[in-house]
């Protein structure tokens, strides 16, 4: 059901086709106005975005088809980990428009964005860690962003085009779950820039994995390279008796098997640790607060692998979507 809507007339040329809304079959179709109203030709903003982001060396997307698997937690800690090297400048962009978690996890709740001559100034956690989120534009914690797709897309475009990051080494982009407006727009707007790739988050159980498989197909469809898969919330060590329990059972082999089946890299596992959640709620870095947790080391190993990938990829710009050869 790729490009043809369910209720389309028989000869529908497909919504993405140049004939969309204009073919004879489109006469009388309820979607005709919608299809013919699509912008024709390249979007001039894409060139502007390209220009703006020339000052950003590496771009990493954090994705998952599934909700609540730890995308935002991972984004924030990847950023903390990258920014631990004071010679590097790191940016975090939150394109989860309806459920922005990044301001809280990075301890920036209640902060506001400032305008400057060169665009929107991000909010800084430290000198070398800059953040932008729709959360900084809201008037309070009860404020809901009740927006349909086009408005969300407009916001994302503004974030990519107008935020003045300065010269930065890494831009990490946190996304909501799914394969819809936010994801299509972000990848489309970034299409003229060099994106290093996506890190896919999952939890071990099949209910999550089945959605992540869809996300892999999304990445392949839009030609987004996959850096690898991270399995979060794998196992829980009871702090009282130190015995391990499986809370989200990997009934189909977990993230590792999924990655192997799809021929993509498995970056590692992160255990469930109540202190991770606590740090997120308090807006603190887990790396600073809980240096001794097994999760800290596992996290750092994964970050090293991502750094490695990015530095290698710079030399080798060939597109690798992980597609079976």
């Amino acid at each position, binding site marked *: 059901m790729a490009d043809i809507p369910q209720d389309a007339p028989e000869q529908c040329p497909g919504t993405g086709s140049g004939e969309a809304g204009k073919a004879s079959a489109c006469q009388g179709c309820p979607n005709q106005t919608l299809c013919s109203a699509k912008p024709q030709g390249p979007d001039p903003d894409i060139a502007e975005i390209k220009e703006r982001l020339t000052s950003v060396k590496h771009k990493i997307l954090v994705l998952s088809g599934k909700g609540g698997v730890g995308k935002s937690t991972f984004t924030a800690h990847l950023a903390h980990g990258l920014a631990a090297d004071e010679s590097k400048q790191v940016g975090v962009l939150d394109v989860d428009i309806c459920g922005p978690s990044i301001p*809280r996890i990075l301890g920036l709740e209640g902060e506001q964005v400032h305008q400057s001559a060169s665009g929107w100034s991000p909010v800084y956690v430290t000198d070398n860690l800059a953040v932008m989120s729709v959360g900084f534009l809201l008037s309070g914690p009860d404020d809901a962003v009740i927006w349909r797709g086009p408005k969300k897309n407009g916001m994302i475009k503004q974030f990519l085009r107008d935020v003045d990051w300065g010269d930065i080494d890494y831009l990490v982009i946190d996304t909501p779950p799914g394969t819809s407006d936010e994801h299509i727009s972000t990848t489309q707007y970034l299409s003229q820039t060099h994106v290093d790739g996506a890190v896919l988050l999952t939890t071990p159980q099949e209910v999550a994995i089945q959605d992540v498989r869809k996300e892999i197909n999304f990445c392949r469809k839009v030609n987004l390279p996959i850096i690898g898969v991270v399995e979060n919330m794998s196992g829980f060590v009871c702090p009282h008796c130190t015995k391990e329990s499986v809370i989200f059972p990997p009934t189909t082999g977990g993230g590792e098997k999924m990655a192997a089946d799809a021929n993509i890299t498995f970056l590692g596992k992160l255990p469930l640790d109540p202190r991770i*959640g606590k740090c997120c709620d308090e807006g603190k870095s887990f790396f600073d607060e809980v240096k001794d947790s097994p999760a800290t080391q596992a996290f750092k190993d994964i970050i090293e692998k991502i750094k490695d990938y990015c530095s290698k990829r710079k030399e080798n710009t060939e597109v690798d979507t992980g597609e079976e050869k």
Partner: protein
Amino acid sequence: MSAPRDHLSTVKHVILVLSGKGGVGKSTVATQIALSLRDAGHKVGILDVDLCGPSIPKMFNVSNQDIHQCPEGWLPVFVDKEQTLGIMSISFLLDNQNDAVVWRGPKKTAMIKQFLNDVYWKDMDYLIIDTPPGTSDEHITVMENLKQYNPDGAILVTTPQAVAVGDVRRELTFCRKTRIPVIGIIENMSGFVCPHCSECTNIFSKGGGEALAKQSEVPFLGCIPLDPQLTQSLEEGQSFADKCSSSPTMAAINTLVKRLMAIDRDLP
């Protein structure tokens, strides 16, 4: 084109399951209340409007079923021979379960409208609607098209952490703005009792949902503890009630369902 169908008018109770936050257990709660309502003798339907990440068919182990047409419209997929529990989900329309539904808002809206109009629910007692996280196309479309059917209201699911509660607070604003009654807030994944030493650890913190309910002056519907058996039974598409009828998790679900059954939508 044929005249718009009006199948929802024959459904007695419509209940939405919402959350601003992902992965808090919306689909799990929808599944469990549907099963409990069915076990209490009701005819129940579940409409899954999570188009990019549908979980309901997997949770009932019916992912590979196809939808059938009848003169009245689309027939839901029933999980039992007696046809007491029927499901509609985009999963049933996919050729391959791994296919990504890469759709923008307008297409999602059209699909959801079709689900709301064309599915022939036949005199269901309850229709439970499972949603993706957020306050966007899916939610706006459902609200706009449900209003005329006078739904019972929405159950808001959260987990205890501030990161989740913060998003659910925004969802409450959404409910107020769209004038959907809030049945209450349920706190899921609240505490985990170690099977080895019986000590309880609050893996995802504790109490956030209850505090939000109090602060926002909406009913608190209780805490559902983390129970690996629940995940396991959802993975296998089996009934958790049959396996673990005496667990605190099941008790919490039963309390919630009793509350739902007490709602009489004809009261003001």
